[in-house]
């Protein structure tokens, strides 16, 4: 259980985290989403007592993390896979962590096997690929068999096998009753893995709801895909009814916020043939983009899509 209450972090004039309040419940995978610079990492660092909040508090298992005598049993975290002394072997890195808690050596070898680091564990970290560093970071997080796990972008740098492995691992940890907070930019991954979502933008809470509710909320707009030989004619008719219409590369039309019935009726009215008409469920990516649209700090100027009005 993680309890975040009014958490705020101010750097000079910039408010990186602004009065965040949310809980992360055990037995679930909670996805932590937000654009770059939204304050996800800073929030995780404050939960772990690395950065001091300007205001508010964060409790892990009912206590501030920085007061714990045996923190690795309370929470394990992978924040930045690169934050390891490059000259030390992965195994020695884990042995140092184990020493701080009197954890026996065999547990170190156990987690090395669990993450599949194998013989590489005895090599120095400077020769590791990003994927191997991620595995080492996950091994470190698991070392103390903690009740709470925080993973910041654990899928970065992993190949498809690695991503699937993380998905199963995270799922398994939550099923064992642990609290899992997982941040990722991979929306399709998050859609498959998370049960609950905490979405922040510009340091503020945008949404704190179950995946089910987010996907069916008002932002999860319905779209209809329609295929017709008379694209221009149908698009024109739909636009006259103030519907948003996007052409797709495949020559279909996507109609926002309309039901298939409406689109079908319009086609009948103007007398054009319809070869396909289907309702599309928005992906998490679309919902997320709609939710965070106003809060994105670093926006890439896209080539303007053909949005007709």
């Amino acid at each position, binding site marked *: 259980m993680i309890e975040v209450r009014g958490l705020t972090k101010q750097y000079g004039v910039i408010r990186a985290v602004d009065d965040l309040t949310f809980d992360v419940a055990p037995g679930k995978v909670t996805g932590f989403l937000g654009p770059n610079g939204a304050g996800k990492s800073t929030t995780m660092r404050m939960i772990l007592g*690395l950065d001091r909040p300007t205001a508010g508090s964060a409790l892990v298992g009912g206590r501030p993390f920085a007061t714990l005598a045996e*923190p690795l049993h309370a929470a394990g975290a992978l924040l*930045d896979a690169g*934050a*390891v*002394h490059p000259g030390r072997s992965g195994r020695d890195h884990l042995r140092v962590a184990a*020493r701080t808690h009197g954890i026996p050596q065999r547990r170190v070898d156990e987690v090395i096997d669990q993450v599949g680091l194998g013989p590489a564990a005895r090599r120095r970290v400077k020769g590791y690929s990003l994927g191997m560093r991620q595995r080492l970071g996950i091994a470190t997080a698991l070392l103390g*068999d903690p009740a709470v796990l925080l993973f910041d972008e654990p899928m970065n740098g992993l190949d498809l096998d690695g991503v699937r492995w993380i998905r199963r691992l995270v799922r398994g940890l939550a099923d064992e009753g642990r609290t899992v907070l997982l941040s990722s930019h991979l929306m399709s991954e998050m859609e498959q893995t998370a049960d609950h979502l905490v979405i922040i933008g510009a340091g503020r809470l945008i949404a704190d709801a179950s995946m089910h509710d987010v996907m069916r909320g008002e932002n999860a707009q319905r779209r209809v895909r329609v295929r017709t030989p008379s694209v221009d004619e149908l698009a024109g008719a739909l636009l006259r009814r103030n519907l948003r219409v996007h052409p797709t590369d495949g020559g279909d039309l996507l109609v926002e916020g309309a039901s298939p019935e409406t689109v079908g009726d319009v086609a009948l009215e103007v007398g054009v043939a319809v070869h396909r008409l289907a309702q599309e469920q928005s992906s998490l990516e679309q919902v997320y983009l709609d939710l965070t649209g106003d809060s994105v700090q670093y926006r890439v100027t896209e080539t303007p899509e053909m949005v007709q009005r």
Partner: protein
Amino acid sequence: MTAVHLQEPGTLTVYGRAATAEWLRLRTVRSTWWCLLAAAVTIVGIGVIMAFDAENVTASGDLPPATAAGEFGVLLGQFALLVMVLLAVTQEYASGAIAPTLQWTPRRGVLLAARVTVPVLAAAVAAVLLAFVADVAAWLIADLSLSTGDVTDSLGRIAAVLVAGGVLAVGVGLFLRSTAGALATVFLLQLVLPFLLPAFGVQWMADLGELLPGSGAIWTLLGEPEMSAAQATTLLVGWSGVALVAGGWSLLRRDAG
């Protein structure tokens, strides 16, 4: 999944574990062993060279005791050991490893205590052992006098210099968080300025030089320049104390870094 640990170990146990972890940290990076090798070569090497040139060491031409070998050796060789101490602190800021370190030992006072004691003690013990080797070498080479009293007194002073210098290095390292910056600062305070400032022949510069921690260290090792034991002690304790307060503040109050 383990149940919540209701009974936590006491602070002394937590410190003990942090200290053994610190010791393992020190042993498992190559830079530590390179520094020890450099210290061994410098301390024993200078001691041996001094022994071969024993009749020219003192102004009076009297033969020095064999312990002078270790003292001259440590005068320069201490820097290899101070670099070892400094890297134990600043490398974590360079690599970001301070974040995991603080996740394992989030009670920062405990980490500070372990980080001050373990690398500094290791440096002091290494200096004492290497100085003793240099003393024995000088005794064998030049047949210089080697009495138990001299050795105890000399090694005690060497330990004091390394403890003061080591705490200074830890404090500066924690405060500046940068290897280059901390290294430059410790070198200037401990070696360069104490030797350089008097060399200009300007009174106020010489006076300034005598206020630096390195002057206290040189006096403790060689009995020069002119100052009282109380002055030297004040310099060593005062500078390392100030550095420890600044570094401790930085570790305890600032964000992890």
